[in-house]
């Protein structure tokens, strides 16, 4: 692989600066955001590079777990912030985070132990990137599906209550919206799998090829990752939507929209 030095990155940074200057001239106010985002990318990625370097040198289960949980909690916050009408109190955070824990962690451990079979199984070179890709993708599915569910419950509250009034259970009254929420959470990964290799070359595969791996080997890893992500997203979305659908009703199966925050 061609090693990159600081000068190479400076040249690439010049492109961003030129773009920022152009947008100033065009009186577009995006230049400041662009520069800040570019600086964030450089700083954040440098930091994670250092963290991973230290982690790889101290590959104990304790450190790897600490890193994994830190990633989980940050992703959980992201899921919460992306929902317009999220649940009030700690439920708003816990429902999404628990679903991600269930899906991403379970699938990652499964892949590490059963499929990859490294020694030790938690080898951070595999565990951390794998978990990162799973969290990043299940995060999307869970955030979209929960947002969709709580939004539908609010918008369609008259219909849901009309169904309750006619003697339907809470489960029956919400089932249609639960189905739609799961579907919309799954669509991004279904589209990504359908378009992979034709419309887009997935980032991980591209990275492996740049790093010198044979395309056929890189492709095998990418297929593995796609399958893991779709399983994780499906599991996580199902868990989140089912937790959410229960939380929308109380023990007497009353629709409790006061459990949602105003947007």
């Amino acid at each position, binding site marked *: 692989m061609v090693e990159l030095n600081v000068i190479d990155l400076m040249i690439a940074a010049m492109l961003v600066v030129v773009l920022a200057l152009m947008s100033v001239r065009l009186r577009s106010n995006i230049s400041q955001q662009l520069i800040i985002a570019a600086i964030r990318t450089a700083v954040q990625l440098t930091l994670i590079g250092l963290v991973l370097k230290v982690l790889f040198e101290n590959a104990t289960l304790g450190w790897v777990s600490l890193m994994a949980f830190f990633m989980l909690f940050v992703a959980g916050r992201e899921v919460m912030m992306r929902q317009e009408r999220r649940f009030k109190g700690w439920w708003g955070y816990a429902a999404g985070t628990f679903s991600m824990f269930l899906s991403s962690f379970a699938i990652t451990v499964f892949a590490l132990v059963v499929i990859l079979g490294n020694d030790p199984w938690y080898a951070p070179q595999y565990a951390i990137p794998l978990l990162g890709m799973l969290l990043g993708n299940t995060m999307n599915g869970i955030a979209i599906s929960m947002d969709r569910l709580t939004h539908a419950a609010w918008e*369609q509250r*008259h*219909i849901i*209550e*009309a*169904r*309750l*009034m*006619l*003697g*339907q*259970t*809470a489960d029956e009254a919400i089932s*249609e919206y639960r189905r739609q929420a799961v579907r919309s959470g799954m669509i991004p990964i279904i589209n990504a799998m359908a378009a992979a290799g034709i419309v887009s070359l997935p980032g991980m595969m591209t990275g492996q090829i740049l790093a010198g791996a044979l395309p056929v080997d890189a492709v095998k890893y990418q297929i593995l990752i796609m399958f893991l992500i779709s399983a994780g997203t499906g599991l996580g979305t199902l868990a989140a939507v089912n937790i959410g659908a229960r939380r929308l009703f*109380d023990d*007497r*199966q*009353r*629709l409790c929209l006061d459990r949602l925050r105003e947007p």
Partner: protein
Amino acid sequence: MSKAPPLLQINRLRRLMIGPVSLSVDEGDCLCISGASGSGKSLLLRAIADLDAHEGQMMLQGVPSVAIEPATWRTRIGLLPPESSWWLPLVKNHFPDSAAVPLEQLGLSDDILEQPVARLSSGERQRLALLRLLANQPQVLLLDEPTANLDPENTRRVETVITEYRRAHKAAVIWVSHDVGQVARVANRHYEVSQGGLQPRDIEGQQWLS
């Protein structure tokens, strides 16, 4: 032999500005409730249908509401809200047995069941919502201004259908109405909601007969 418990017994029910309300309703009763808008009549009906959290107890034929499955409670105590909701494309999709719907009693034509819900008038929706509720055969009917969008002829039809249902099924009716004439036609008890409580009122033009 002890007397049978009332069909519906409500003890010290409270919900927001409503209550405490205590009420005992027997088979065949028709209670009319009137009161200024915003006094909480709809909230009272929602609480009785157990759609909102509330204080106090309710019993159906002596069985506490908490001992009855929520869906069963709401099937037996059917609430007709002022605005009906429809969630399937065709009218008939909302009825378990579309052949058994007594459309002509409410002046509706037979082919209305085949129509899309979007094409119904507000009066048609209101009458169909009543038929949809009655198809569940509730023992207590909670009616929230069921004739608000109807002309006098259809108002009378609705009153007749409800009265006949009440007699045939030994059901009870709690009916929110602003129309004094309607109260006189259908009610055997009349209350007004004021300051959160139910105050007994006379029924205009009606002689008390035992």
